[in-house]
């Protein structure tokens, strides 16, 4: 019996169409637009201005607080302007737009493909390097990585958990990274272990990726303290709390962080970025994303430079299929639909899903039939049907006491609802309002 998390969960059709497609390198576009806010926390402050020459890997926006992240140029060329451009949600946000000229990297970056296993940097130095490289959680939440590694006083980390679950249907970028960059990921894991001062790391992989499990298990023998943990395929196992429950059977109290139970979770893509930052001095300016969809000509995985327009990725994968009804940034469960293909890909772009029209349209919402399915699938043990009504009625105190803030917005409730009720839409609204109220109380 394979391990999985203790409560709720669903198993949507996996549709991992691009699993067998090796990572390709997306051509560098003519211009990139790099938003200054690609992470959770304060937006970075631009340190370049119009007409500045920049190189690949050069710092262009500086972290503006503890919870914030540096941003580096992904191309070499001239800064065209620093202006507000439309982001994925249609709002205008500040971005640095760079006209590309050649591909000249910073001299400090080691561009060789050789694997550097020896970790010479000390604990503080590793965290500093990770912060300087602007590494954020690449699973999609984009929480600055150095913040998670700075264990608050009074708490101790016991175990590092590497999130290689990739529980979102369709997405395969982490899968491909594990297969093609297995050694780098494991060295990255060891670096993270050193930064945290732990001697145990668990890599959680769902068993729908048997080749990745076999590959990493073989490699893990060469690395001390790393165990590979196959998990039963179950959404949302990639949620931090679910993964901790699945791998080490510990429950995080409501409102607390994983460090409360001695765990720190990092994504497998983050581990690779950490390897590159610490061993190769390479800041985070490129990552791997999946482009997929049932009618897409060529579902595939691509390494792209941050700031490349979404359009380029679609063109590279064979162009926009005619019957496209929705373009989703991210996976089908937690991703957000894009309003235009002119927006840039960012640090948090793990995939792009082109849904055909008949799958894209929401079905008509009908009254709740009190079947309780949403309650049984909720991985956080909440009552989504009730939270939805409370949010609609603006009963914020009750929402708070019913632990709406514990919702991880996985969308299992909306997915499973036989009446097609937009449960998560309302819960997210309530969460936002309750969060505001709680912050203003402080």
């Amino acid at each position, binding site marked *: 019996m394979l391990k999985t998390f203790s409560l709720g969960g669903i198993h949507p059709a996996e549709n991992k169409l691009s699993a067998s497609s090796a990572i390709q390198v997306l051509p560098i576009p003519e211009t990139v637009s790099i938003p200054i806010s690609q992470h959770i926390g304060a937006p970075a402050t631009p340190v370049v201005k119009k007409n500045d020459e920049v190189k690949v890997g050069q710092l262009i926006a500086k972290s503006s607080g503890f919870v914030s992240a540096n941003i580096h140029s992904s191309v070499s060329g001239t800064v065209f302007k620093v202006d507000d451009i439309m982001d994925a949600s249609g709002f*205008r946000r500040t971005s640095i737009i760079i006209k590309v000229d050649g591909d000249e990297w910073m001299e400090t970056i080691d561009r060789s493909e050789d694997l550097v296993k020896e970790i010479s940097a000390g604990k503080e130095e590793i965290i500093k390097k990770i912060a300087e490289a602007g590494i954020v959680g690449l699973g999609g939440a984009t929480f600055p990585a150095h913040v998670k590694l700075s264990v608050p006083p009074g708490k101790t980390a016991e175990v590092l958990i590497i999130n290689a679950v990739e529980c979102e249907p369709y997405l395969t970028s982490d899968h491909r990274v594990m297969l093609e960059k297995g050694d780098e990921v494991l060295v990255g894991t060891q670096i993270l272990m050193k930064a945290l001062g732990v001697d145990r790391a668990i890599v959680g992989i769902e068993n729908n990726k048997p080749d990745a499990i076999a590959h990493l298990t073989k490699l893990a023998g060469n690395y001390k303290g790393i165990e590979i943990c196959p998990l039963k395929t179950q959404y949302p196992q990639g949620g931090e709390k679910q993964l901790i429950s699945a791998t080490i059977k510990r429950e995080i109290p409501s409102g607390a962080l994983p460090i409360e139970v001695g765990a720190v979770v990092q994504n497998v893509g983050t581990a690779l970025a950490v390897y590159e930052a610490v061993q190769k001095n390479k800041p985070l300016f490129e990552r791997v994303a999946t482009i997929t969809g049932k009618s897409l000509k060529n579902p595939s995985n691509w390494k792209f430079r941050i700031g490349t327009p979404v359009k380029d990725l679609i063109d590279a994968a064979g162009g926009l299929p005619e019957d496209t009804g929705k373009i989703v940034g991210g996976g089908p469960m937690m991703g957000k639909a894009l309003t235009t293909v002119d927006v840039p890909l960012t640090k948090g772009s793990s995939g792009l899903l082109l849904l055909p029209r008949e799958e894209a349209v929401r079905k008509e919402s009908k009254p709740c039939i009190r079947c309780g399915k949403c309650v049984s699938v909720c991985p956080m043990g909440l009552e989504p049907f009730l939270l939805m009504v409370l949010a609609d009625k603006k009963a914020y105190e009750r929402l708070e006491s019913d632990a709406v803030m514990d919702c991880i917005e996985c969308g299992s409730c909306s997915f499973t609802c036989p009446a097609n009720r937009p449960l998560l839409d*309302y819960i997210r609204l309530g969460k936002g309002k309750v969060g505001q109220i709680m912050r203003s109380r402080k």
Partner: protein
Amino acid sequence: MSIIVITILALCAIGVTAAIILFFVAQKFKVYEDPRIDEVEEALPAANCGGCGYPGCRGFAEALVKADNIDNFLCPVGGAPVMSHVGAILGHEVKAAEPTVAVLRCNGTCENRPKTNQYDGAPSCTIAASLYSGETGCQFGCLGLGECVDACNFDAMYMDKETGLPVIIEDKCVSCGACVKACPNHIIELRKKGPKSRRVFVSCVNKDKGAIAKKACDVACIGCGKCVKECPFDAITLENNLAYIDYNKCKLCRKCVIVCPTNAIHELNFPPRKEKPTEKPTAASVKPVAAPKAEVKAEEAPKIEPTANDDTTENK
């Protein structure tokens, strides 16, 4: 037989004892409440809309009775007549407040502001606004899902299917402000009703630079500043590429309306421009559309007699 007698007597005895106890307890724990609260509550319209900012008419009545000066209080439903009645009860002199009305500051109809995408999430403006910028290129304008209409307790709003925008029925609007609070994009504003319901306002809230705003919507304010230069009364301010007309300074001369290159400035309920205001040679409205009018209306209590509601509904 005696059982019945005993029962009746016992019950009477219990009743009398309880009455005596209750009488003393009531004396002891008596709460004094100003009788005027009831009186004031009686005078209020009992709509319990919350438009005054207090929890229902009772709450408002309590606040009124407590206050030393009720000049800053206004029941938007009852308006000046109710407030003067309340003033009479409480013995305050009441200055009639200028009646206000909800005004929609967006003219992004389907024609003026073409859709760039389609929203199929939960039908709520607040949810749509929290997710993304809306179905058009304008991130500031009306989302068209009608949360303001749902919030209106007075049937004073409806969604126009053709334009996709809400319409405010001026005669029914009591200016309670429920729609203003409901709108996540803050498009609706309470503005002075104006003499004969005549109003001039910028029907746009787009803060983008001119080119972007214009691309998204044909009738967007592009922040060109022509109206600011034209206005003889300094009533127009330009901030974040958006003009705003201060209704306290505006003398309704309508010069800004003519110069606006995108027709973003609307004039309501004015007679057609050519044959100047000739129809009513009485006191009120001949030339005073211009300067002197405002000074007059400041002291003068009037406009209570519902400003000649001959005018049609507004906000096209």
